[in-house]
């Protein structure tokens, strides 16, 4: 396990460096002069020169890159042009909200998907299964930027049960969490149904039933447990999709997290903040994938030797 962990860590370092290099290159892709893009065409030459010095754009490219990478190692993501505060602090202030939303979305998707998948498998081909399959198919096809406003129309505008946007109570979290978790719920429900159907055909389930175990118990304590292994794999693989999904969901519901900060930073052309947010989301994504891989290696020893 130790060797496997080291090997996976060693593979992650060059990827992280590549991600950092890509993010560094972003500001140099800005057409024309990034300082002019941020301050506007009519900005005085002195202000432009000052901003170029502040961003380090007047130094040779290699020196800029070196300073950037050394800064990252020390946790320095630069200074926000709009707020005039460290980028790391701006992200830190919103991190909790994004984590709260992502965790709530995962919880919603699991709570919806498991019963839907189990019902589909138990009543295969019957109307319950058809309803469950249709619901999950719709969930996969509906992009979250449509699902969110639709939920808002029904539950906030028509019924008045939940607030349309903002934060402050648990009710504010419901619509964003369902919007973000919807697609994952649909995927998990389909997966649970398919694997449970396979598992119910196994001889050990038949043997349990022959021993007089009730149908419900055979499903819940025997088949379902085994069918959950691929489902847990999908949950791990989808962590990243949930993380990037927060960008759109936070924008729809004015949820003050890192995703919304990124979109606001783009509209203000606050490039240091844009770079910081993108680097932060990408690094979290890579790190989560690493952790998921390590957990699998720990759960299933066969993975370590592949």
């Amino acid at each position: 396990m130790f060797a496997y962990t080291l090997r996976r860590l060693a593979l992650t370092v060059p990827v992280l460096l590549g991600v950092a290099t890509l993010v560094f290159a972003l500001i140099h892709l800005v057409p024309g002069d990034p300082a002019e893009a941020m301050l506007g065409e009519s900005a005085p030459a002195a202000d432009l020169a000052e901003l170029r010095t502040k961003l380090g754009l007047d130094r040779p490219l290699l020196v800029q890159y070196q300073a950037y990478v050394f800064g990252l190692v020390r946790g320095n993501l630069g200074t926000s042009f709009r707020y005039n505060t460290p980028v790391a602090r701006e992200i830190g202030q919103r991190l909790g909200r994004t984590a709260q939303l992502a965790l709530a979305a995962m919880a919603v998707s699991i709570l919806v998907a498991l019963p839907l998948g189990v019902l589909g498998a138990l009543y295969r081909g019957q109307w319950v299964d058809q309803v469950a399959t249709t619901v999950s198919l719709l969930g996969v096809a509906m992009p979250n930027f449509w699902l969110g406003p639709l939920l808002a129309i029904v539950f906030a505008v028509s019924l008045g049960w939940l607030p349309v946007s903002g934060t402050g109570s648990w009710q504010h979290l419901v619509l964003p969490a369902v919007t973000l978790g919807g697609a994952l719920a649909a995927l998990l429900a389909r997966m649970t149904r398919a694997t449970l159907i396979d598992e119910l055909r196994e001889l050990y389930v038949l043997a349990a039933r022959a021993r007089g175990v009730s149908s419900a118990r055979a499903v819940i304590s025997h088949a379902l447990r085994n069918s959950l292994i691929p489902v847990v794999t999908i949950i791990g693989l989808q962590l990243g999709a949930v993380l990037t999904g927060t960008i759109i969901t936070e924008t729809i519901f004015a949820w003050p997290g890192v995703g919304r900060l990124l979109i606001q930073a783009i509209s203000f052309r606050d490039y240091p903040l844009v770079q910081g947010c993108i680097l932060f989301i990408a690094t979290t994504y890579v790190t989560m994938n690493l952790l998921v891989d390590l957990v699998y290696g720990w759960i299933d020893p066969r993975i370590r030797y592949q």
Partner: protein
Amino acid sequence: MTRRAGPIIILLTIAAAVIGPVLVPHDAIAQDLPMRLNGPSWSHPLGMDELGRDLLARLLMGARISLFVGVSVVGVSALVGTIIGALAGYLGGVADAIIGRVMDVLLAFPGILLAIALVAVLGPSLRNVVLALVTIGWVGYARLVRGQVLKIRELDYVQAIRAQGASLARVLRAHVIPATFSAVSVQATLGMAGAIIGEASLSFLGLGVQPPTASWGTMLDAGRSHLFDAPHLTIVPGLAIALLVLGFNFTGDALRDRLDPRL
């Protein structure tokens, strides 16, 4: 059922995008402010938007944008990805290692995040949306083709052609790449759905097609401010996106069932 539904949805959308604007008597960008936010009526079957523009005309204009983005992103990504993947798989060695590392970094990056980043710095426009989606799109094709070519290059007929002294370009173009077409065509069909969602996501965030041009994503974005007084602005373009995406997903699945002998 889904096997037929997919191609039917796609063909209807193409027909609507091509001949629709001719049949609808309204201009997609002409404003009629007193009529703003009006619901469906005989003269405007889908109602009017926040600037008094006919929603049906804008929906048809949006269909053209979605299909254009889908075809151009998938076309360029598949072409670039196939060539790079075939070279990596066929040549192996240093070329494969370098291409492999670049692909690792791009695959480690969440796709839509990289697209957002690129459009954020290049500026919002239809051209930059296509460029951003191609930048993240080619990797999937390259990885798929590389895997296929690793197997194909060892087959006897390829070895025989190489032994006859055929050039690298000829071996790849005439014998190796055509053998990957069925796998690429499945991925391309599913990729159309991904590109359409990608364009709509970027436009929804204000990073894609710019007004007054209509895109289904920008129409949804505009509808967000009128959830209370004009929900049809949200329902109509969202339904169009979901249907077309479903159409390409159904078609991709059906194509895979037909082309993959193991299924």
